[in-house]
């Protein structure tokens, strides 16, 4: 029992030392949104209440364990009932709980209720990536696990922000009330950025909402927080919070990029261009299931190499990629040029001998 006492003491010392908490990431983040600090304070308040109750209860236990032992020649008392103490230790916890429930309710209502948002971002979960759309700004993109992380999974050398880096960051303005509309394209995901204290399930067929007003510029990282299949651990979230001016500039750039992509979809691409662009898109979007070598996983994910789809008529291939089938998600959110590239890559790589698909084919297949 002495060991236990020492252990409990050491843990208590560890928990109470603020320095240790900051250094080793032992505690919840205070975050950078208008709500996250309140949630942190509530968490600490409840923690210290529990800690105090623990000190009283365990203190009484250890006092008894140390002093009321037979080896010390103690004779056992015989009391075994007292309605008074039962009332006391039913009543006092109720009062403590009421004292906790009042601030908890207040923070909850603050966190859940938003009168008016300054802007909206729609977040769609996919197996296993996030799609971000800015409906008012008319821009949108996919955000995949960064290649540097994907390649390092089986290596000893890990890059900075291993598994917490993506190919395209979500960008948000500082000091702005942002409403997140969260949904899913396949299974349930959960969009979580600890620093914003935003964590909300993405349910297929339903739209949930959450909001945050972020008070500090910076880069913040999060992860999917609901088991969503094989690569649940490999769909991180990275958000750049920038000044309102920088955000406006970024939006303009994105709109120009989108216009350029739309223009490129009308021209005819060479096979080499399609193949090169397709390889990047394949590795980011498709290799999670169908594997980088196109061999798939037998019984779960079909092979690309030598398959009837990749070597057969282009119409079937287009249909399955655009509309999905069973466990295979629909990829209609990708642009025509990107879809043409990735389909061409699948039909030409891995020793396959399918036909080339042009962006115009995708446009007419939609």
């Amino acid at each position: 029992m002495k060991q236990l006492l020492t252990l409990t003491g050491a843990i208590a010392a560890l928990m109470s030392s603020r320095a240790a908490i900051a250094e080793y990431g032992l505690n919840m983040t205070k975050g950078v949104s208008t709500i996250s600090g309140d949630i942190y304070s509530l968490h600490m308040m409840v923690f210290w209440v529990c800690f105090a109750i623990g000190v009283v209860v365990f203190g009484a236990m250890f006092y008894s364990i140390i002093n009321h032992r037979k080896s010390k020649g103690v004779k056992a008392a015989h009391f075994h009932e007292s309605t008074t103490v039962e009332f006391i230790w039913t009543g006092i916890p109720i009062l403590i709980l009421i004292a906790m429930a009042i601030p908890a309710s207040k923070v909850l209502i603050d966190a859940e209720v938003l009168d008016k948002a300054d802007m909206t971002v729609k977040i769609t979960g996919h197996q296993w990536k996030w799609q971000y759309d800015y409906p008012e700004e008319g821009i949108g993109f996919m955000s995949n696990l960064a290649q540097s992380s994907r390649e390092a999974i089986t290596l000893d050398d890990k890059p900075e922000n291993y598994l917490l880096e993506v190919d395209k960051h979500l960008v948000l303005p500082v000091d702005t009330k942002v409403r997140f509309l969260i949904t899913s394209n396949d299974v349930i995901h959960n969009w979580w950025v600890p620093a914003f204290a935003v964590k909300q399930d993405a349910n297929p067929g339903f739209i949930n909402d959450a909001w945050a007003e972020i008070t500090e510029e910076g880069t913040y990282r999060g992860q999917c927080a609901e088991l969503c299949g094989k690569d649940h651990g490999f769909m991180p979230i990275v958000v750049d919070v920038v000044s309102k001016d920088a955000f406006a500039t970024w939006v303009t750039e994105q709109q120009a990029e989108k216009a350029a992509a739309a223009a490129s979809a009308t021209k005819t691409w060479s096979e080499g261009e399609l193949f090169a662009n397709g390889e990047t898109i394949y590795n980011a979007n498709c290799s999670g299931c169908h594997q980088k070598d196109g061999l798939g996983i037998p019984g779960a994910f079909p092979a690309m190499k030598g398959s009837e789809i990749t070597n057969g008529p282009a119409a079937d291939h287009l249909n399955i990629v655009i509309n999905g089938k069973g466990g295979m998600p629909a990829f209609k959110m990708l642009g025509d040029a990107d879809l043409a590239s990735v389909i061409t890559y699948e039909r030409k790589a891995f020793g396959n001998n399918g036909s080339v698909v042009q962006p115009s084919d995708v446009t007419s297949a939609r």
Partner: protein
Amino acid sequence: MSTIPAVAAHDDHHHGPEKGLLRWVKTTNHKDIGTLYLWFAFSMLLLGGAFAMGIRAELLHPGLQLMEPQFFNQLTTMHGLIMVFGAIMPAFVGLANWLIPMMVGAPDMALPRMNNWSFWILPFAGAILLSTFFMEGGAPAFGWTFYAPLSTSFAPDSTDFFIFAIHLLGFSSIMGAINIIATVLNMKAPEMRLMDMPLFVWTWLITSFLLIGAMPILAGAVTMMLTDRNFGTAFFDATGGGDPVMFQHIFWFFGHPEVYIMILPAFGVISHILPTFARKPLFGYSSMVYATASIAFLSYIVWAHHMFLTGMPVAGELYFMYATMLIAVPTGVKVFNWVATIWQGSMTFETPMLWALSFVILFTIGGFSGLMLGIVPADIQYHDTYFVVAHFHYVLVTGALWGIIAAVFYWLPKWTGRMYNETLGKVHFWWAMISVNVLFFPQHFLGLAGMPRRIPDYSLQFADFNYISSIGAFAFGLSFVLFAYIVVDCIRNGKPADARPWYSAKGLEWTLPSPAPYHSFNTPPTRADILAESQHS
């Protein structure tokens, strides 16, 4: 008492166990069936533990070293299912079988043939569940909570075998529960009143009602999954007018009572052990009974606290937060009563007492984190992180499993007629107690620092605590080898045990010789016997 030798002599002629292996297949005896349940549960514990070792080995270092993510998910899923339905629940039914007839002064369980059947369904259900590992697409990989649509449209064909296994496990549990209710209410000694019953009997009686209420709901959930998967219904599919969140409501309407199914009998066990080794009666017997019943009632009206992030209205979140916080009251009463029980006692610290005392402390730590999780705004940050993993392992491992191990050491002399090796028992306790905290305590920090649960790989900031946790896991896993040795050594080489091996132990089971005769009480105990052995005298 005078009837006992006659019972033993009688047994030799007509009612002794059958010879050979068929004894175990055909038996309708509550002790044989209890033994079968306990060994089955222990073997499932080792198997589920082996899965956990695989999980912790993969999480020892960042990166994927040993397995593909899909197999990792199969391991986490099967670990949960096997531990809940294969280890903890059958172990408590085994304890109930062994102990309830002896504690209520009955000769056997009320429905002995059904008792045989409810056990023998289990190995087949377990085999069906485990066979999915060898099927195309692998075992279920959607977590033990099997949320739709990951478990419906997106799951391998083997999921239908999982559904069938869950149905069978449900039959078994419901039959076990019916049998326990019938035994307690119909077979208890005529002179025994309800408020004379020992706490283990009371907690199991209440647990049985939870089982009868909860298991059919689970069966309903998996049946809806089955028809969604195979017969074109859309209960959980929004494209057909269904709702995936409805699955979670149904699942947790089973799932929350389920967690109390796994802990209430442990409360009962602890309420027997603490008084014995404190040499002092249980404090607040009747408030313990009422607290258990209150917890059981509350367990049915708090289910959605597992679902705060599914998009619930604020009013719903407030209600489920208040209802959840309320559970702390009766649970607190139980803990305070236990502390009052040992207060001013004359304690000794044999192995069962060590497990029981550490149960009170460690289970309470799990209770604290449970209270924290019930606070909705804070749950936004805790939800689906390792903080949750730490919480439910504190209540299920150092709660439910601790109760089972404490019970095994406490009643082993009665079951086997022999004493276990006390030194080894203590070594095993300290080994398990320290390693389990090294295993689970750091997971609180991991969760608070932002590590989601059910991920096979993690970013580098989580590396240190995962390493510590895995080392603790390997040490804790190894402790069960010693546990198995101690039990087998007790059965084969233990010194003969007295009828009442623990000085001031109270309870009708201690009035029987050790080992207990094949049929417990052929003549019901008298009112005087019952009063002398009651927990509140």
